[in-house]
């Protein structure tokens, strides 16, 4: 009897798990497959196969201009977020002072504040100071602020196990504070920096919420532009663009898996 329960229970769990795992990959697989359709409208499964929508995507001006905007925003905001993240992680890992808790709350606050609020609040300020046309700058600022908590956490956790006496030994042997940091601390936190940078870059490159509020006419990101094309164009070009974004994300995902492991995503 117990055996029967065990087997049927396990069988039920397996069936349910497989169903939901398929559910998780379904929209991704369907997007990839339908982008290779030969027809002028979207259906799944496609009636025939072709790469014409990829050619159409590569020829579209909007794809290239917004792609470069997204790359520039992601690279610059990731670089600043990494710098802020290292400084903040160092403060939190090495210093005890009054107001440390408040400092931690401030730096992690973008995780608490909903994205629409951050986006709209920044837009409101940029309109007040008449800077709403500086789209790229606004987007970089917004993305930097919301990705800094990610870089902070990744760097902070890589600092956690480090022995402070190593740094003190270097300093007592004549190293300056800077050279002790660069020669001792920095090499030890490189994995955290890489992980944080990849998470920040992926977040920025894929973000819609903040970008939907801060995109100006001249500075739109690829996901935001893609969103308006999905809304209005019944043409498979967005499917090809979506598939290209999936492939770019997959490249980053494999990079993380091979270098620092998937644990960085699991410990959020």
């Amino acid at each position, binding site marked *: 009897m*117990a055996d029967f*329960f065990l087997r049927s229970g396990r069988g039920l769990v*397996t069936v*349910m798990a*497989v169903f*939901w*795992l398929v*559910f*998780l*990959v379904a*929209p*991704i697989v*369907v*997007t990839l497959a339908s982008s290779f359709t030969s027809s002028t409208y*979207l259906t*799944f499964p496609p009636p025939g196969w072709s790469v014409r929508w990829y050619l159409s995507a590569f020829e579209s001006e909007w794809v290239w201009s917004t792609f470069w905007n997204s790359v520039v925003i992601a690279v610059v905001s990731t670089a600043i977020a990494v710098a*802020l993240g290292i400084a*903040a992680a*160092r*403060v939190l890992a090495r*210093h005890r*002072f*009054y107001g440390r808790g408040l*400092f931690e709350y*401030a730096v992690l606050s*973008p995780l608490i504040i*909903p*994205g*629409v*609020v*951050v986006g*709209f*609040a920044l837009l*409101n300020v940029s309109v007040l100071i008449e800077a709403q046309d500086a789209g790229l700058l606004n987007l970089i600022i*917004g993305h*930097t*602020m919301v990705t800094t908590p990610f870089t902070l956490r990744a760097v902070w956790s890589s600092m956690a196990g480090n022995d402070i006496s190593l740094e003190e030994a270097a300093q007592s042997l004549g190293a300056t504070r800077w050279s002790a940091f660069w020669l001792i601390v920095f090499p030890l936190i490189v994995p955290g920096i890489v992980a944080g940078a990849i998470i920040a870059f992926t977040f920025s490159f*894929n973000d*819609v*919420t903040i970008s*939907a*509020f801060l995109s100006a006419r001249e500075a739109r990101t690829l*996901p935001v532009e*893609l*969103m308006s094309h*999905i*809304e209005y164009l019944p043409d498979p070009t967005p*499917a090809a663009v*979506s598939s290209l*974004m*999936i492939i770019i*994300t997959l490249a*980053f*995902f494999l990079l993380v*898996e091979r270098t620092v492991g*998937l644990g960085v*995503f*699991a*410990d*959020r």
Partner: protein
Amino acid sequence: MKAGRFPASLATPVLLAFAVFIVAPCVMLLVKGLEPTAETGEWPDFTNVLGVFDSKVGQQALNRTIRISLIVTAVCMLAGYPVALFIARCAPRWRGLLLAVVIFPFLISAVVRAFGWTVLLGDSGLANKGLIALGLIERPIALVQNEIGIIVGETHLLMPYMILSLLAVLQRIDPNLRHAAESLGASPVSVFWRIVVPLTLPGLLTGTLLVFSLAMTAFATPFLLGGGRTPILTTLLYDYAFTLFDWRLAAAIGIVLLILGILFVTIHRFVSSRGMRSYG
């Protein structure tokens, strides 16, 4: 380490950035949302914020937000549990692949995922074809541009958080506990209900809070899958900001969302610190 000097050279640039680009904008949002509606009114005027709960549109959006978030959380719980159990007990070489299947979708842009769902849930999509083939419906039913679309999309968006929260606690369960219970004569069913379930409750709780709060504040997924006629709080904020150009009302909704965000984190902190204490 005891309390020391404030590390000014490191902390100042960071604090300055957050003060200027996060705190100040949020304060300005508060100022905007509490601006007096009438010419003669005085600041702060709570009419707009209360109006979110009073007006028909606001009330509908609030109710819809809560309803959708509750459904999404329930589905994530019921779906995430078997997936987490399955991953926790499968062979290590499969575990990596299955973990990748769980984590990869949540790195993909919400726009791309919503796009996939519009194809799947459309009138000629696989979901409708499947339901017709099963004989459950006769002609295609609307699965996107309504609440169903939002629920499916948000479930897909948030289920990984639930699975990962559950896996974190499942992997910490000592297998000896199960063996001990079994050797003392417990049936697999009672091992599950009396050992596995109680030990995973903290993970279930953190997952639930995380999924519910993220469901309340999701934007891109409901925007793309919900269409114009089913606004929730976040998409209503966007509508007020960009279609109706009523920034006072948009800011008022922002204030409500901000309060909800802070509320959930406070509950989360409280629950997880208690969870830590009782489960070591």
